[in-house]
């Protein structure tokens, strides 16, 4: 069974169900079909010379998983310690290779169904994020939900460039 899950291609998928979470007072979403589980913050092992958005490793049920700090990627201030904080364990195709990652979030809200909703492109102006990281924006009763493109955010070219920039 595990095998079948590993080989599943995780991409943008159909506009269907998304898991929403908070980062710096914004609501973000990733496809729920890629999400394995949501766990409480785990003890981390720092990785020297790692890209700043993947600074550490965590042990998720015996798997060594890279911990992703999206705040770094989205130009946000470091997260304050918060009892609401959760790690979303999700599968992302990094350079075509299905990889399990743990995404640090301030809080996990729940699952939304955006079928039938209008997914709008991110306006070019007025955003502080790199547009290629964002798949689109959906209007919800609580405000906007920003759908992330995790594969692009963790793309190896960027990862490689980041790490050499630092070295």
């Amino acid at each position: 069974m595990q095998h079948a899950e590993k080989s599943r291609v995780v991409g943008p998928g159909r506009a269907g169900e998304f898991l929403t979470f908070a980062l710096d007072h914004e609501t973000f979403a990733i496809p729920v079909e890629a999400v394995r589980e949501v766990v409480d913050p785990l003890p981390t092992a720092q990785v020297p010379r790692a890209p700043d958005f993947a600074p550490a490793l965590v042990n998720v049920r015996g798997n060594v998983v890279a911990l992703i700090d999206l705040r770094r990627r989205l130009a946000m201030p470091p997260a304050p310690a918060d009892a609401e904080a959760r790690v979303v364990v999700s599968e992302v195709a990094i350079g075509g290779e299905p990889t399990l990652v743990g995404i640090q979030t301030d809080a996990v809200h729940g699952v939304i169904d955006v079928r039938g909703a209008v997914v709008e492109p991110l306006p070019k102006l007025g955003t502080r994020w790199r547009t290629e990281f964002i798949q689109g924006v959906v209007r919800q009763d609580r405000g906007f939900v920003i759908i992330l493109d995790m594969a692009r955010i963790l793309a190896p070219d960027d990862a490689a460039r980041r790490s050499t920039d630092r070295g």
Partner: protein
Amino acid sequence: MTAFDPAGTFLLEARELLRELEAGLLELEQRPDDRALVDTIFRALHTLKGSGGMFGPPALATFAHEVETRFEGIRRGSETATPALTGLLLAARDHLEQLLEAPDTADPAETERLVVALRDTGETACIPAAPAEPVATEPSARAWRIGIRLPATALEFGTNPLGMLDELRALGPCEVRARTEAVPALGELDPTKLYLHWDVRLVTTRPRAAIEDVFIFVADSGGIEIAEDTAEPAPECASVTVAAVGPPAAPANHDAPPAAAKEARRLGRREAARSMDRPEASVRVAASRLDALLDQVGELVIAQARLTALAQSRKDPVLTGVVEEIERLAAELRESTMGLRMLPIGTLFGRYRRVVRDLSQELGKAVELTTAGEATELDKTMIERLGDPLVHLIRNAVDHGIEDAATRRAAGKPAHGSLHLEARQAGAEVLISIKDDGAGLNRARIREKAVARGLIAADAVLSERAIDQLIFHPGLSTAATISNISGRGVGMDVVKQTIEDLRGSIEVASAPGAGTTITLRLPLTLAIIDGLLVRVGASMCVVPLAAIEECVELAAAEHKGSSGRSFLDVRGALVPFLRLSELFGVGAGAREHEMVVIVASEQGRVGLVVDQVVGHHQTVIKSLSPLHRGIPGLGGATILSDGQIALILDTTGLIQSAQDQATWRLSA
């Protein structure tokens, strides 16, 4: 569940058969009279032809038939396996490989040329139409009783009983009687089922194996009974009455006269002897499944270590007993799982006979390859990745190491060179050595070249060992002429890189005029590492034990003055050192009782300063995600018994990158 993929299975099988064929033909070149070998080769060819006809490209089966026909001559003894003939057969084998792997690129003219060569035996090469006329040298005809009881579903699996009967007829005159007892009434008859059985009495000069070959594709061979007929071989097939064929073969043996019983026993023994030659029954499993199994077992071992720690804190004797039991089982399970991935290195050595044979012909140097330790087992992945580096080392040895016959005679050596390939296990390592009796490394020339390329200073003082290591430097090749065999000086550095990626090392020993020995030291497996667990700040690291030379305490005097220099005085020798805490960015903590782990590197001994040496640790390696894979100095990660993650250091990469960053200097 994996879907049944006959074409894929055929491809895997055919590759194996081609390997068998190659190994067999090379052996045959040495021992042309080995009948058992001839039979083995024939069987491989026959199977290839048969299954190729069903699943392979049509040209493959047709060509395989031509090869088989020619080989039939050797098998019958009418032709001997001369070197020229085995050469032709080897070329034909290569062509078969091309027809299998890339049928579209195969040159029809080449097929034609080979077919003409194969058919040119100086006589008509087809199988004699009447094998009943025995050649004088052949054994006299014997009679066999063959009972064919195929399962009712045989037709569904593509078995063709008529084809079998035709093949039996081709072996000699035979009497076939169909048994119709099992045929049901028409109303109940299922046209896809097989209800018929056959009893066959066959008179043939051919051995039992030839009859067995007819049934080579019968999945359940239990339904086939082959026994020698106790009655005198009938001179004429027609005179055998149907009644004589009647009783099934097996009972006939029971009331056989003593002489025949003895014969049956003799046959039985031969069968037993042969089955010992055959490899054990095996199951083909996708490598990815083995990897997944090993992963899961690794996780089990980690979970079990946590359980052990928990049980120790509870001090419950019953719990402790169970936990110890689980600990033992988990260790055994890990051992057997690792064993599943181990393959004898002989599978690799077989390939090199061909390489050496072709090379020695191409270069006009007579070279004899001897091998030892084929049964030495090594991790499957390792064997796969060693293939090319070893080819390169062998080519180098034949091309550069071994001199031509004239030079060798002048040096008082035998005209033909010898190359010895050996594998053996030493502790947790496997040593593979390639030894030639050639001229040895020309150190003066290597040095000259290295100076010319600016790799070393003209007045540098280098030990012989250091000079020998220069052959692994990228871009250094000492071949007087660039040949298409040893390449253009790219290669030895790649060989070294590959071996190091496998966490192994490479050693050179050379004596001028007497030859060179290159030894590869490799860990038994890639999945488990023996290391020293150390603490740096809050981080845990595993330093591979293979790289460690010793551990010393960092003397107080040392770290006080360490701001300006980073050398350590170890028994009079200056050893540069590197603070892992700086690498980890944990800053200067309480610098008391710091330890230095001294590791061997290309640049000599280097010390790694750590906060604490925790102890020896054997662990399952977890590979890093693409996000962290490229970080120099990191080889992987592992999970400790308390669930904490430790990083596995790659000391070579670590020292290299530290040197690149010039954050510290090495002694001259």
